[in-house]
């Protein structure tokens, strides 16, 4: 195992050197985009740029002329507005969020919009060209169908967390403390929590002053963080010999995920979407679509809209949420079945063991 670590260290070093003369890449660079302009022309008119707190965040797909827009939910934060090709900016309301697909339905106060019509994706064969619509003249990226539309439910363990979040570097266990919280059961390599002074057996009871009732609450608190950010963690520490309990505050500088070889390789070649796992169905393409250009429609050479790009998922793959999944969901979302506004939630049950972060087997 140490040999593998050594290898990783060497490999990363080499990659680091390699990045100095990084070159533009992707299928044939940008020259290939131009012949696709007439193919995406119609879809581009139904594609909008979504801004969060006045900053470019993601793309959106107009799904009905009366102002409904679908986009990638996990990229939304703060005040959401929609920017059109002519530069006009409109405030948007988040009507509905569907977690399994990571879709959000936005509503703007405007009528007469160009909307997409979702066509069937499931017969689109491997090897067919795909183009991701954008707000300009050309597509934002092109590629081919790598794997036809497939069902992932049951395989891709239900992980709706942001893979780019910050990590404490601990494995959690259910606490037997009647006052709740989550127990720190073991540390990962280079554990951020350990560096900050947290000890094994401590019970995490608050993160940034928010009470942590269980593992789910802690994940939710971490989901919006990024590696390098600081988080305030309050723990309850028992001293068995003295039979005392004290509450201690720590400032933890969050780390990244435990880097296994697969994670390292998948991150070689550009930024990946935060939420990139846990989707029920996907059409897989080799197009190199930047995370900020996800959320728009994707078409084939006939201009048929096969779905919405939902994640830059790895070095070799971008995932498209297929029309077959979107169509029935859209009706439900419009009908208010998955309201975006958080209603008072009961405390989440404490998980027996935490799925993340991963600790490498010795």
């Amino acid at each position: 195992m140490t040999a593998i670590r050594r290898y990783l260290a060497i490999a990363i070093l080499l990659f680091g050197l390699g990045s100095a003369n990084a070159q533009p890449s992707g299928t044939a660079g940008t020259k290939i985009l131009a012949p696709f302009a007439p193919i995406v022309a119609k879809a581009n008119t139904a594609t909008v740029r979504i801004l969060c707190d006045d900053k470019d965040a993601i793309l959106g797909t107009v799904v009905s002329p009366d102002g409904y827009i679908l986009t990638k939910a996990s990229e939304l934060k703060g005040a959401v507005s929609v920017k059109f090709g002519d530069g006009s900016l409109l405030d948007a309301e988040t009507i509905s969020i569907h977690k399994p697909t990571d879709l959000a339905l936005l509503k703007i106060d405007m009528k007469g919009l160009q909307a997409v019509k979702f066509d069937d994706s499931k017969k689109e064969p491997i090897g067919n060209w795909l183009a991701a619509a954008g707000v300009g003249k050309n597509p934002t990226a092109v590629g081919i169908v790598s794997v036809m539309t497939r069902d992932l439910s049951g395989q891709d363990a239900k992980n709706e967390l942001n893979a780019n979040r910050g990590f404490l570097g601990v494995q959690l266990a259910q606490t037997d403390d009647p006052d709740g919280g989550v127990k720190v059961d073991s540390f990962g390599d280079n554990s951020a929590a350990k560096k900050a002074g947290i000890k094994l057996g401590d019970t995490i009871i608050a993160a940034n002053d928010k009470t942590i009732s269980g593992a789910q609450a802690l994940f939710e608190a971490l989901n919006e963080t990024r590696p390098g950010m600081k988080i305030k963690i309050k723990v309850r520490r028992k001293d068995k010999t003295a039979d005392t309990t004290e509450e201690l505050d720590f400032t933890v500088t969050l780390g990244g995920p435990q880097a296994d070889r697969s994670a390292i390789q998948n991150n070689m070649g550009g930024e990946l979407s935060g939420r990139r796992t846990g989707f029920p169905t996907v059409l897989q393409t080799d197009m190199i679509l930047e995370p900020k250009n996800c959320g728009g429609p994707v078409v084939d050479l006939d201009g048929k809209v096969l779905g919405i790009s939902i994640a830059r998922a790895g070095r070799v793959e971008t995932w498209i949420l297929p029309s077959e999944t979107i169509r029935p969901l859209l009706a439900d979302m419009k009908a208010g079945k998955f309201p975006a506004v958080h209603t008072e939630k009961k405390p989440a049950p404490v998980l027996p063991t935490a799925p993340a972060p991963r600790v490498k087997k010795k």
Partner: protein
Amino acid sequence: MTTRRFARLAPVGAILCLFLFSGPALSADDPVKTELSKWDTVRDKVPESIEELKALQAAVKKVVEKSTPCTVGVMIGMGAGSGVIVSEDGLVLTAAHVSGEPNKDCTIILPDGTRVKGKTLGTNDKVDSGMIKITDKGPNDGKWPYLPVGKSADLKKGQWLVALGHPGGWKRDRPPVARLGQIQDPGKDTIRTNCTLVGGDSGGPLFDLDGNVVGIHSRIGYTLASNMHVAADAFKTEWERLAKGEAIGKPARPAPAVLGVTFGSTTGVQDNDSTEIKEVAEDGPAEKAGLKAGDIIVEFGGKDVSTADEIRAIIRKKKPGDMVEILIKRGTKTIPKTITLGKRDS
């Protein structure tokens, strides 16, 4: 795959680990439409019109359809890679860091998920080429579907290619994953393309648009345009030796030398911080030299030693048959001994 292998290849770039599979649907081309113009399979330019995009797409789909049934997953021990069948008797091309040592059992996963048995053949570590033989009978009168191996020297920069493989390892209900790209650098032993690869793809095939295997996925660099494949010609020049199961370019590694003792106090537990002999293997080198449990080794091969690890480090540098002078303490006496190191049994 062994850690040693990874370590050895590391200086070239990232090593891939792999997996792949198959099964595209046929597209119903409208026969009434005017004929598709045909894509020139050696063209090195990007398509410039919708018509040309369609022509390239038709060529790509043809390659995918034909090659998917011959693209396999390879499982050896804990490692998972990809491969491609290139003869009707089931010869599979893969990467050396996937197949590893010759003459080992492995499992080949066919595109439909069927698992068949295979044996690893030769490797060439210098270029990362490897071969495997499927030992089960093929589905067509005992024969396997297979693909031709092309001439990689004819490849030109800019030429379009299709890569298949099992990124991240073989996955249930996922056929071999297709990627399209162009030659970035047509080398003699290594081809660089922008067909993106990741761990699990290793050993998978790279095709020209005539459907020939022109490369085998090997490793990646930092950029998306740094995907390295073993050139098909590098297989051809060593074909006979690889098929015979030779490990080409591997430094001859002598069998490890052994002393035939365990360390630790005779009254306590195993202890690496002690040079006291706890047990002496029957008929082993130490016993033959007259060592006994309870002896404490104080000098080994001319060096003062105080821990078992120091002794082991010296033994690692020796070969079986080497003679080593040692000094032991037995009770109050210090006794010199000469030991002829032995060979590990298995």
